[in-house]
Protein backbone atom coordinates (compact mmCIF):
# COMPACT_ATOMS: atom_id res chain seq x y z
CA UNK A 1 0.00 0.00 0.00
CA UNK A 2 2.65 2.48 1.10
CA UNK A 3 4.83 1.41 -1.84
CA UNK A 4 1.98 2.09 -4.28
CA UNK A 5 1.39 5.55 -2.82
CA UNK A 6 5.11 6.27 -3.01
CA UNK A 7 5.24 5.14 -6.62
CA UNK A 8 2.20 7.25 -7.58
CA UNK A 9 3.72 10.21 -5.76
CA UNK A 10 6.90 9.95 -7.80
CA UNK A 11 5.06 9.34 -11.07
CA UNK A 12 2.71 12.29 -10.61
CA UNK A 13 5.71 14.38 -9.64
CA UNK A 14 6.74 14.26 -13.28
CA UNK A 15 4.97 16.99 -15.27
CA UNK A 16 4.85 14.83 -18.38
CA UNK A 17 3.32 11.85 -16.61
CA UNK A 18 0.88 14.16 -14.84
CA UNK A 19 -0.15 15.73 -18.14
CA UNK A 20 -0.70 12.40 -19.86
CA UNK A 21 -2.47 10.64 -16.99
CA UNK A 22 -4.81 13.51 -16.16
CA UNK A 23 -5.66 13.74 -19.85
CA UNK A 24 -6.92 10.18 -19.64
CA UNK A 25 -8.72 10.76 -16.33
CA UNK A 26 -10.46 13.94 -17.40
CA UNK A 27 -13.40 12.43 -19.36
CA UNK A 28 -14.23 10.11 -16.45
CA UNK A 29 -14.15 12.95 -13.97
CA UNK A 30 -16.38 15.06 -16.23
CA UNK A 31 -18.79 12.13 -16.51
CA UNK A 32 -18.79 11.80 -12.71
CA UNK A 33 -19.52 15.51 -12.33
CA UNK A 34 -22.42 15.45 -14.78
CA UNK A 35 -23.90 12.24 -13.35
CA UNK A 36 -23.83 13.51 -9.77
CA UNK A 37 -24.30 17.28 -9.88
CA UNK A 38 -27.15 17.49 -12.40
CA UNK A 39 -29.42 14.80 -10.88
CA UNK A 40 -28.43 15.92 -7.38
CA UNK A 41 -29.39 19.53 -8.05
CA UNK A 42 -32.62 18.66 -9.88
CA UNK A 43 -33.63 16.31 -7.07
CA UNK A 44 -32.66 18.74 -4.36
CA UNK A 45 -34.09 21.88 -5.90
CA UNK A 46 -37.29 20.45 -7.36
CA UNK A 47 -38.26 17.15 -5.79
CA UNK A 48 -36.92 16.98 -2.25
CA UNK A 49 -39.65 17.79 0.28
CA UNK A 50 -39.77 21.29 1.80
CA UNK A 51 -38.48 21.69 5.34
CA UNK A 52 -41.00 21.73 8.19
CA UNK A 53 -39.65 25.05 9.46
CA UNK A 54 -37.95 26.85 6.61
CA UNK A 55 -40.15 25.73 3.73
CA UNK A 56 -38.34 26.00 0.43
CA UNK A 57 -35.56 28.38 1.39
CA UNK A 58 -33.41 25.58 2.82
CA UNK A 59 -32.86 24.29 -0.75
CA UNK A 60 -30.02 26.72 -1.26
CA UNK A 61 -27.97 24.37 0.89
CA UNK A 62 -27.59 22.12 -2.16
CA UNK A 63 -25.13 24.72 -3.42
CA UNK A 64 -24.05 26.29 -0.14
CA UNK A 65 -22.87 23.15 1.65
CA UNK A 66 -20.82 21.65 -1.24
CA UNK A 67 -19.20 25.06 -1.86
CA UNK A 68 -18.26 25.42 1.79
CA UNK A 69 -16.90 21.90 1.91
CA UNK A 70 -14.75 22.47 -1.17
CA UNK A 71 -13.51 25.88 -0.12
CA UNK A 72 -12.13 24.24 3.03
CA UNK A 73 -11.01 20.98 1.38
CA UNK A 74 -9.26 22.94 -1.37
CA UNK A 75 -7.41 24.99 1.20
CA UNK A 76 -6.17 21.89 3.02
CA UNK A 77 -4.99 20.49 -0.29
CA UNK A 78 -3.19 23.76 -1.08
CA UNK A 79 -1.47 23.73 2.33
CA UNK A 80 -0.39 20.09 1.90
CA UNK A 81 0.98 20.97 -1.54
CA UNK A 82 2.77 23.85 0.17
CA UNK A 83 4.48 21.44 2.58
CA UNK A 84 5.57 19.30 -0.37
CA UNK A 85 6.91 22.40 -2.11
CA UNK A 86 8.96 23.45 0.89
CA UNK A 87 10.25 20.03 1.90
CA UNK A 88 10.58 18.07 -1.33
CA UNK A 89 10.85 20.95 -3.81
CA UNK A 90 8.47 19.21 -6.17
CA UNK A 91 7.66 21.26 -9.25
CA UNK A 92 4.27 19.61 -9.79
CA UNK A 93 3.17 20.57 -6.26
CA UNK A 94 4.08 24.19 -7.04
CA UNK A 95 1.81 24.14 -10.07
CA UNK A 96 -1.08 22.41 -8.29
CA UNK A 97 -0.90 24.80 -5.32
CA UNK A 98 -0.93 27.77 -7.67
CA UNK A 99 -3.97 26.47 -9.56
CA UNK A 100 -6.03 25.61 -6.46
CA UNK A 101 -6.14 29.21 -5.18
CA UNK A 102 -8.55 30.79 -7.70
CA UNK A 103 -10.81 27.71 -7.72
CA UNK A 104 -10.95 27.58 -3.94
CA UNK A 105 -11.56 31.33 -3.79
CA UNK A 106 -14.52 30.91 -6.16
CA UNK A 107 -16.07 28.24 -3.95
CA UNK A 108 -15.48 30.33 -0.82
CA UNK A 109 -17.14 33.29 -2.53
CA UNK A 110 -20.07 31.12 -3.65
CA UNK A 111 -20.44 29.81 -0.11
CA UNK A 112 -20.54 33.31 1.38
CA UNK A 113 -23.00 34.64 -1.22
CA UNK A 114 -25.40 31.69 -0.97
CA UNK A 115 -25.09 31.87 2.81
CA UNK A 116 -26.10 35.53 2.81
CA UNK A 117 -29.04 34.82 0.50
CA UNK A 118 -30.10 31.97 2.77
CA UNK A 119 -29.63 34.08 5.88
CA UNK A 120 -31.98 36.87 4.81
CA UNK A 121 -35.24 34.86 4.79
CA UNK A 122 -34.35 32.49 7.64
CA UNK A 123 -32.37 34.52 10.18
CA UNK A 124 -33.64 37.90 9.05
CA UNK A 125 -30.23 39.30 8.15
CA UNK A 126 -27.74 39.02 5.31
CA UNK A 127 -24.70 39.05 7.52
CA UNK A 128 -23.74 38.87 11.15
CA UNK A 129 -20.23 38.89 12.60
CA UNK A 130 -20.40 35.53 14.28
CA UNK A 131 -17.43 33.19 14.47
CA UNK A 132 -18.50 30.93 11.59
CA UNK A 133 -19.24 33.69 9.09
CA UNK A 134 -16.19 35.73 10.01
CA UNK A 135 -13.75 32.81 9.83
CA UNK A 136 -15.19 31.86 6.43
CA UNK A 137 -14.64 35.42 5.22
CA UNK A 138 -11.04 35.19 6.44
CA UNK A 139 -10.67 32.03 4.35
CA UNK A 140 -11.73 33.98 1.25
CA UNK A 141 -9.20 36.71 2.09
CA UNK A 142 -6.48 34.08 2.59
CA UNK A 143 -7.20 32.69 -0.87
CA UNK A 144 -7.07 36.19 -2.34
CA UNK A 145 -3.80 36.83 -0.49
CA UNK A 146 -2.30 33.65 -1.91
CA UNK A 147 -3.39 34.65 -5.41
CA UNK A 148 -1.97 38.15 -5.02
CA UNK A 149 1.34 36.82 -3.71
CA UNK A 150 1.57 34.41 -6.62
CA UNK A 151 1.07 37.26 -9.06
CA UNK A 152 3.41 39.65 -7.27
CA UNK A 153 6.49 37.45 -7.54
CA UNK A 154 7.79 36.94 -11.05
CA UNK A 155 9.85 33.80 -10.57
CA UNK A 156 7.35 30.92 -10.25
CA UNK A 157 9.61 28.92 -7.93
CA UNK A 158 10.13 31.81 -5.51
CA UNK A 159 6.43 32.63 -5.69
CA UNK A 160 5.55 29.02 -4.89
CA UNK A 161 7.77 28.97 -1.80
CA UNK A 162 6.45 32.28 -0.50
CA UNK A 163 2.80 31.28 -1.02
CA UNK A 164 3.50 27.86 0.49
CA UNK A 165 4.42 29.58 3.77
CA UNK A 166 1.29 31.73 3.63
CA UNK A 167 -0.98 28.78 2.88
CA UNK A 168 0.52 26.68 5.68
CA UNK A 169 0.13 29.52 8.19
CA UNK A 170 -3.45 30.09 7.04
CA UNK A 171 -4.31 26.43 7.56
CA UNK A 172 -4.77 27.27 11.25
CA UNK A 173 -8.07 28.85 10.19
CA UNK A 174 -9.52 25.55 8.91
CA UNK A 175 -10.22 23.90 12.29
CA UNK A 176 -11.50 27.28 13.52
CA UNK A 177 -14.11 27.34 10.72
CA UNK A 178 -15.04 23.72 11.31
CA UNK A 179 -15.47 23.94 15.08
CA UNK A 180 -16.53 27.60 15.39
CA UNK A 181 -20.15 26.53 15.80
CA UNK A 182 -19.22 24.27 18.71
CA UNK A 183 -16.60 26.35 20.51
CA UNK A 184 -18.55 29.61 20.58
CA UNK A 185 -22.20 30.51 20.41
CA UNK A 186 -23.05 31.62 16.89
CA UNK A 187 -26.06 32.41 14.77
CA UNK A 188 -25.02 29.70 12.34
CA UNK A 189 -26.34 26.26 13.24
CA UNK A 190 -24.03 23.29 13.90
CA UNK A 191 -23.20 20.76 11.18
CA UNK A 192 -26.03 18.49 10.01
CA UNK A 193 -23.77 15.83 8.58
CA UNK A 194 -20.88 14.25 10.42
CA UNK A 195 -18.89 11.21 9.35
CA UNK A 196 -21.10 8.85 11.30
CA UNK A 197 -24.54 10.45 11.44
CA UNK A 198 -26.85 13.05 10.04
CA UNK A 199 -29.79 15.05 11.33
CA UNK A 200 -31.51 15.30 7.95
CA UNK A 201 -34.35 13.27 6.53
CA UNK A 202 -32.93 10.74 4.02
CA UNK A 203 -34.90 12.16 1.05
CA UNK A 204 -33.15 15.48 1.67
CA UNK A 205 -29.79 14.00 2.58
CA UNK A 206 -29.22 11.81 -0.48
CA UNK A 207 -29.41 14.66 -3.04
CA UNK A 208 -27.15 16.72 -0.78
CA UNK A 209 -24.55 13.96 -0.68
CA UNK A 210 -24.81 13.67 -4.47
CA UNK A 211 -24.17 17.40 -4.78
CA UNK A 212 -21.21 17.27 -2.37
CA UNK A 213 -19.53 14.36 -4.17
CA UNK A 214 -20.43 15.90 -7.53
CA UNK A 215 -18.81 19.19 -6.55
CA UNK A 216 -15.68 17.26 -5.56
CA UNK A 217 -15.58 15.82 -9.05
CA UNK A 218 -16.14 19.30 -10.45
CA UNK A 219 -13.27 20.61 -8.36
CA UNK A 220 -11.02 17.83 -9.67
CA UNK A 221 -12.00 18.63 -13.26
CA UNK A 222 -11.34 22.35 -12.84
CA UNK A 223 -8.07 21.75 -11.04
CA UNK A 224 -6.85 19.30 -13.66
CA UNK A 225 -7.75 21.64 -16.51
CA UNK A 226 -5.98 24.59 -14.89
CA UNK A 227 -2.93 22.57 -13.89
CA UNK A 228 -2.53 21.09 -17.37
CA UNK A 229 -2.37 24.59 -18.81
CA UNK A 230 0.16 25.50 -16.15
CA UNK A 231 2.25 22.41 -17.02
CA UNK A 232 2.34 23.37 -20.68
CA UNK A 233 3.24 26.95 -19.89
CA UNK A 234 6.03 26.07 -17.49
CA UNK A 235 7.44 23.19 -19.52
CA UNK A 236 7.19 24.95 -22.85
CA UNK A 237 10.91 24.59 -23.49
CA UNK A 238 11.01 20.83 -22.82
CA UNK A 239 11.19 18.40 -25.74
CA UNK A 240 7.89 16.64 -25.02
CA UNK A 241 5.84 19.83 -24.99
CA UNK A 242 7.46 21.05 -28.20
CA UNK A 243 6.65 17.72 -29.78
CA UNK A 244 3.09 17.84 -28.44
CA UNK A 245 2.34 21.24 -29.88
CA UNK A 246 4.04 20.21 -33.12
CA UNK A 247 6.84 22.70 -33.21
Amino acid at each position, binding site marked *: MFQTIKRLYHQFGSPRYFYEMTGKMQPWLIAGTVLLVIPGLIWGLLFA*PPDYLQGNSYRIMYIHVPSASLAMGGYVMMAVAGVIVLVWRMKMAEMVARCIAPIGASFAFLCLVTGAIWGKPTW*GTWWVWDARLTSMLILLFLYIGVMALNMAIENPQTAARATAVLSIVGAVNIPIIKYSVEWWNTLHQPASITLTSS*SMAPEMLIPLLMCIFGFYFLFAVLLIMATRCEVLAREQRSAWVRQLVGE
Partner: protein
Amino acid sequence: MNPKRKQKLIIILGGLAALGLATGLMTYAMRENINLFYTPSQVVAGEAPMEKRIRVGGLVVVGSLVRGDDLEVTFDITDKAESIKVRYDGILPDLFREGQGIIANGRLVAENLVQAEEVLAKHDENYMPPEVQHAIEQAGHPKKDKQEKAAY
Protein backbone atom coordinates in the same frame (compact mmCIF):
# COMPACT_ATOMS: atom_id res chain seq x y z
CA MET B 1 14.06 10.32 4.34
CA ASN B 2 16.96 12.57 3.60
CA PRO B 3 18.00 14.18 6.93
CA LYS B 4 17.82 17.71 5.56
CA ARG B 5 14.25 17.21 4.35
CA LYS B 6 13.34 15.54 7.61
CA GLN B 7 14.64 18.58 9.46
CA LYS B 8 12.62 20.93 7.25
CA LEU B 9 9.48 18.87 7.73
CA ILE B 10 9.98 18.94 11.50
CA ILE B 11 10.48 22.72 11.41
CA ILE B 12 7.28 23.22 9.39
CA LEU B 13 5.17 20.91 11.55
CA GLY B 14 6.65 22.39 14.73
CA GLY B 15 5.97 25.89 13.48
CA LEU B 16 2.40 24.96 12.62
CA ALA B 17 1.90 23.41 16.07
CA ALA B 18 3.26 26.54 17.77
CA LEU B 19 1.07 28.76 15.61
CA GLY B 20 -1.95 26.59 16.36
CA LEU B 21 -1.23 26.82 20.08
CA ALA B 22 -0.84 30.61 19.89
CA THR B 23 -4.10 30.96 17.97
CA GLY B 24 -5.81 28.61 20.39
CA LEU B 25 -4.72 30.65 23.40
CA MET B 26 -5.63 33.90 21.71
CA THR B 27 -9.12 32.80 20.74
CA TYR B 28 -9.53 31.30 24.22
CA ALA B 29 -8.60 34.63 25.79
CA MET B 30 -11.02 36.47 23.51
CA ARG B 31 -13.85 33.96 23.78
CA GLU B 32 -16.14 36.49 25.42
CA ASN B 33 -15.80 38.72 22.37
CA ILE B 34 -16.09 35.90 19.88
CA ASN B 35 -19.30 34.62 21.41
CA LEU B 36 -22.08 36.27 19.46
CA PHE B 37 -24.54 36.64 22.30
CA TYR B 38 -25.06 36.46 26.04
CA THR B 39 -27.21 33.65 27.35
CA PRO B 40 -30.03 34.48 29.80
CA SER B 41 -27.96 32.89 32.60
CA GLN B 42 -25.10 35.28 31.88
CA VAL B 43 -27.47 38.25 31.91
CA VAL B 44 -29.05 37.19 35.19
CA ALA B 45 -25.59 36.69 36.67
CA GLY B 46 -24.81 40.30 35.73
CA GLU B 47 -22.17 39.54 33.11
CA ALA B 48 -23.82 41.68 30.45
CA PRO B 49 -23.25 45.45 30.65
CA MET B 50 -26.23 47.76 31.14
CA GLU B 51 -27.20 50.33 28.51
CA LYS B 52 -24.72 49.07 25.96
CA ARG B 53 -25.44 47.36 22.67
CA ILE B 54 -25.41 43.64 23.32
CA ARG B 55 -26.90 40.52 21.85
CA VAL B 56 -28.83 38.00 23.87
CA GLY B 57 -29.87 34.61 22.62
CA GLY B 58 -32.20 31.89 23.82
CA LEU B 59 -35.40 30.00 23.17
CA VAL B 60 -38.68 31.87 23.14
CA VAL B 61 -40.64 30.59 26.14
CA VAL B 62 -43.88 28.97 25.00
CA GLY B 63 -46.85 31.12 25.98
CA SER B 64 -44.81 34.19 26.87
CA LEU B 65 -45.47 36.22 23.73
CA VAL B 66 -47.61 39.30 24.39
CA ARG B 67 -48.55 41.70 21.61
CA GLY B 68 -48.98 45.33 22.57
CA ASP B 69 -49.89 48.42 20.53
CA ASP B 70 -48.89 48.45 16.88
CA LEU B 71 -45.99 46.08 16.40
CA GLU B 72 -44.78 46.06 19.96
CA VAL B 73 -44.19 42.60 21.38
CA THR B 74 -42.68 41.27 24.56
CA PHE B 75 -41.59 37.72 25.15
CA ASP B 76 -39.29 35.74 27.41
CA ILE B 77 -36.21 33.90 26.29
CA THR B 78 -34.63 31.11 28.24
CA ASP B 79 -31.60 28.85 28.19
CA LYS B 80 -33.43 26.29 30.33
CA ALA B 81 -31.79 27.64 33.46
CA GLU B 82 -32.76 31.31 33.62
CA SER B 83 -35.03 33.50 31.56
CA ILE B 84 -35.15 37.20 30.70
CA LYS B 85 -37.70 39.48 29.06
CA VAL B 86 -37.27 41.00 25.60
CA ARG B 87 -39.26 43.99 24.34
CA TYR B 88 -39.27 44.68 20.62
CA ASP B 89 -41.01 47.10 18.31
CA GLY B 90 -40.78 45.90 14.75
CA ILE B 91 -41.39 43.08 12.34
CA LEU B 92 -40.41 39.67 13.63
CA PRO B 93 -38.63 37.31 11.21
CA ASP B 94 -40.69 34.60 9.51
CA LEU B 95 -39.07 31.86 11.51
CA PHE B 96 -39.95 33.49 14.80
CA ARG B 97 -42.22 31.28 16.87
CA GLU B 98 -42.54 30.15 20.44
CA GLY B 99 -40.03 27.45 21.26
CA GLN B 100 -37.71 28.70 18.55
CA GLY B 101 -34.17 29.94 19.19
CA ILE B 102 -33.68 33.66 18.58
CA ILE B 103 -31.00 36.29 18.98
CA ALA B 104 -32.00 39.82 19.97
CA ASN B 105 -29.77 42.79 19.34
CA GLY B 106 -30.38 45.65 21.76
CA ARG B 107 -29.71 47.18 25.15
CA LEU B 108 -30.24 45.97 28.67
CA VAL B 109 -32.54 48.74 29.97
CA ALA B 110 -33.52 47.26 33.31
CA GLU B 111 -32.58 44.19 35.25
CA ASN B 112 -33.34 41.23 32.99
CA LEU B 113 -35.16 43.34 30.40
CA VAL B 114 -33.73 43.85 26.94
CA GLN B 115 -35.03 46.53 24.60
CA ALA B 116 -34.32 44.95 21.20
CA GLU B 117 -33.67 46.84 17.99
CA GLU B 118 -33.35 43.71 15.89
CA VAL B 119 -34.54 40.16 16.35
CA LEU B 120 -32.90 37.34 14.39
CA ALA B 121 -34.28 33.82 14.21
CA LYS B 122 -31.93 30.93 14.71
CA HIS B 123 -32.62 27.57 13.18
CA ASP B 124 -31.06 24.27 14.06
CA GLU B 125 -29.33 21.59 12.05
CA ASN B 126 -32.38 19.33 11.77
CA TYR B 127 -34.14 19.20 8.43
CA MET B 128 -37.24 17.14 7.79
CA PRO B 129 -40.41 17.22 5.72
CA PRO B 130 -43.50 18.68 7.46
CA GLU B 131 -45.23 15.28 7.54
CA VAL B 132 -42.36 13.72 9.46
CA GLN B 133 -42.36 16.53 11.98
CA HIS B 134 -46.11 16.15 12.33
CA ALA B 135 -45.76 12.41 12.85
CA ILE B 136 -43.09 12.93 15.50
CA GLU B 137 -45.34 15.34 17.39
CA GLN B 138 -48.28 12.96 17.09
CA ALA B 139 -46.19 10.19 18.57
CA GLY B 140 -45.66 12.39 21.59
CA HIS B 141 -41.99 13.06 21.04
CA PRO B 142 -41.85 16.81 20.91
CA LYS B 143 -38.83 17.38 18.71
CA LYS B 144 -38.18 20.39 20.88
CA ASP B 145 -35.80 18.38 23.04
CA LYS B 146 -33.51 17.96 20.10
CA GLN B 147 -33.99 21.53 19.05
CA GLU B 148 -33.23 23.01 22.40
CA LYS B 149 -30.02 21.08 22.69
CA ALA B 150 -29.09 22.39 19.28
CA ALA B 151 -29.92 25.99 19.92
CA TYR B 152 -26.79 26.65 21.94
